């Protein structure tokens, strides 16, 4: 990740989470953190416990972030943010934590509508991180939308959300069309769809991992003596080794939900 990418993401994060900007210099950013951000990216739980117990005026930290070493004004302690810096990783975690759930209405002034009300179509949009695991791991992010009125599923739905304006309150003269699917039902549909998607991926890696696992197990079976000749300890040891091999190699898929959003869209053909 380039320093300017780290910078722009940092800036957006700080602003989105209400930090007070003191200086936005090309080489550095100086800011007084909001309480929320201070708690998330600076590890000082005891301070916060103390402040809250004693009812003191909280003093969130002021930090000066740089994105390349040695760019701070002289005499100031810099907080160097690179993509691998623990503080930056904490920001990412914090961002993921707080930005998981949204409910938004498309903010589009209907033209020439003097009376009556314009409908919204309800969509549930999920972002999944699909992880393929054996002794190694790779991830894939997938964005799925489901029309809560028809059950129609659309992949890469995130694209559809771009370039629109949003508001978190239902605007005047608008109403939402009733959903046919409940949220749990819709989630069930998406999971079912996802399972099919996973099964259609290139799964050579899983076959290879399975072969490897079988080889490892065979090697263990060949190494330890026949069952009746083994002491209890040796028997236990062999069982442990077999378990470890399975633990290490068995191919599997884990799906984590990164975000979930309820989006109300203006129908294209009202």
């Amino acid at each position, binding site marked *: 990740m380039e320093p300017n990418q780290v910078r722009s993401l940092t800036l957006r994060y700080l602003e989105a989470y209400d930090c007070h900007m003191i200086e936005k210099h090309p080489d550095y950013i100086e800011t007084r953190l909001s309480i929320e951000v201070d708690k998330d990216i600076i590890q000082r739980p005891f301070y916060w416990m103390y402040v809250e117990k004693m009812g003191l005026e909280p003093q969130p930290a002021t930090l000066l972030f740089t994105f390349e070493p040695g760019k701070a004004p002289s005499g100031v302690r810099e907080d160097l943010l690179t993509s691998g810096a623990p503080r930056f990783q904490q920001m990412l975690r914090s*961002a993921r934590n707080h930005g998981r759930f949204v409910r938004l209405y498309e903010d589009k002034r209907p033209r020439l509508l003097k009376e009556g009300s314009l409908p919204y179509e309800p969509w549930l949009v999920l972002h999944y991180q699909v992880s393929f695991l054996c002794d*190694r791991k790779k*991830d894939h992010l997938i964005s799925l939308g489901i029309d809560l009125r028809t059950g129609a599923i659309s992949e890469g739905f995130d694209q559809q959300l771009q370039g629109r304006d949003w508001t*978190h309150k239902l605007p005047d003269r608008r109403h939402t069309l009733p959903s046919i699917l409940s949220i749990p039902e819709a989630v069930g549909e998406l999971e079912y769809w996802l399972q099919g998607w996973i099964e259609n991926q290139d799964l050579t*890696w*899983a076959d290879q991992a399975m072969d490897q696992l079988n080889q490892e197990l065979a090697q263990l079976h060949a*190494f330890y003596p026949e069952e009746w000749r083994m002491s209890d300890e040796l028997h236990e040891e062999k069982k442990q080794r077999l378990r470890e091999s399975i633990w*290490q190699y068995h191919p*599997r*898929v884990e799906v984590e939900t990164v975000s979930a959003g309820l989006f109300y869209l203006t129908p294209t053909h009202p």
Partner: protein
Amino acid sequence: MESLPIRVDRTWLNDFLKNMEQESGWSTWERYRLALEAAELQCIPDFDTLRCLEYVTGFEPLPHQIETAQKVLGQMKGRAILADEVGLGKTIEAGLILKEYMVRGLVKNALILVPSSLVLQWTRELNQKFQIPATPQKKEWMWDQYDILVASIDTAKRDPHRSKVLNRHYDLLIVDEAHKLKNRRTKNWQFINEMKKKYTLLLTATPIQNDLHELYNLVTLLKPGQLGQQTSFNTTYVAGKRKPKNEDQLREEVHRVMIRNKRSDGHISFTKRHVHTVRVTLSPEERALYEGITQFIREQYQSNRGQLKSLLSLITLQREVCSSRDAAFHTLFKLFKRESDGLESLSPEVLHLAGLLRAVQTQSKVNEALRLVKEINDKVIIFTEYRATQDLLIRALNEHNIYAVPYRGGFARNKKDWMREIFQTRAQVMVATEAGGEGINLQFCHHIINYDLPWNPMRVEQRIGRIHRLGQSEDVTIFNFATENTIEEHIVWLLHEKIDMFRTVIGEVDTILEKMGLKEDVEQNLMRILIESKDDQEIQVQLDKLGDQFASAEEQVRTEIEKREVLMDGTQSS
């Protein structure tokens, strides 16, 4: 693949439904976008890029270290013996591997078992170089409370710790100095064998010390059955006590689980060392002081025979006077005090020495150091054994407008780092009383002055190792100061000319000393020679003998190493 197990996380759903019910807890569009972008950044779309490299701080991993990490993560699937020769960075390789697994979430808890003397160093390196939150194990309760622990194997294998360790499942186990696991009948081996672990790294520079069974035991600990059952291994590969057969096949099998980088591999380059002895002639006053002290020691030796301990402190005085008047002053002052604390009046001998000491006005060695530092006209590290000499040198250098910083073992970590920083960026000279742990590296400097020498060759090697190590891009020049016609000259002669200490490859010195039965007490041995010899000639003869012993031990060590090398990869060692 018939049925690939899929686990879908649904823990979020209740929270989401609660938000809907209560019409609250919703995030904004911008925060939602940020969460997605953060997830994209943390998503790793392939099995084999090394993402850990983004997290590495303050150094550049070398190509062979990166390759090793890739091979262990890829082909070897996280169970490997890292058997690089000493000084090629096994710790770095292990750190890269651990970090990669952590970044990918494949390792959440890890145990690093090392000799107790290395616990803090490992902890520091993992934290500083890789941003891995490793903690040194100190208390019993810590076994369950921390995810990344660095512990001493001797502690871990004993109760009550043992049962705690054996109860846990470790995603990754790293064992440093793993040649201590060469014998299947030992507690060490059985303990590691009993542990529950997913990935395992065994680190050792000497996977074989004596015979093939050691290698068999190591590999079997790592992957039981990799080299077959003991009996079949014996029939296939062992011809005699130290003689293997089917070596090519054995090597192939071993190299499936072991990586060994060597200095002699083309891509790892070490620069040269140039060694010079700088002879310093004492001024008449210094000479008188040195002779006075030597005389004093002889007399003391004759008058209270057998009290070796107090004699040793007298030899120290003799060494100190070779370093500087100031260094000797402190010891003399203490002698002085001890006498005056008692009821006796001061002995005329001590008073005489004090007088001689006062007479010394200029110090020849200091002048020589100033001259040399100016001549080098580049960064220099000056090592001395004595605090007083260190202060003296810093003062003298500063008086001549040469910026010099001190460095010593007693400094807090922060101060050490800070001094190193100043030395790198602004000062020309660092005056150090100790070589420091592995933590400090000074590769940007190419000149060492040994203002005085430790008598223990291991410590000499550590000094040089601060600078002449992997990553040093230029030849390194070493100057050893030797005051003429003193014990110092004898020692420099022994270390430099007789045993060619300054060329011996890092990591062999301790093996050689061990072979000589001298590992702990080289210094004592040298002192004894100096005290017990009648005259200079006898000292020379004795040191010569010692040197010969060293040479023959070195010869033996080298032969053994060669044999092992041939066994492991069919080539000669570097």
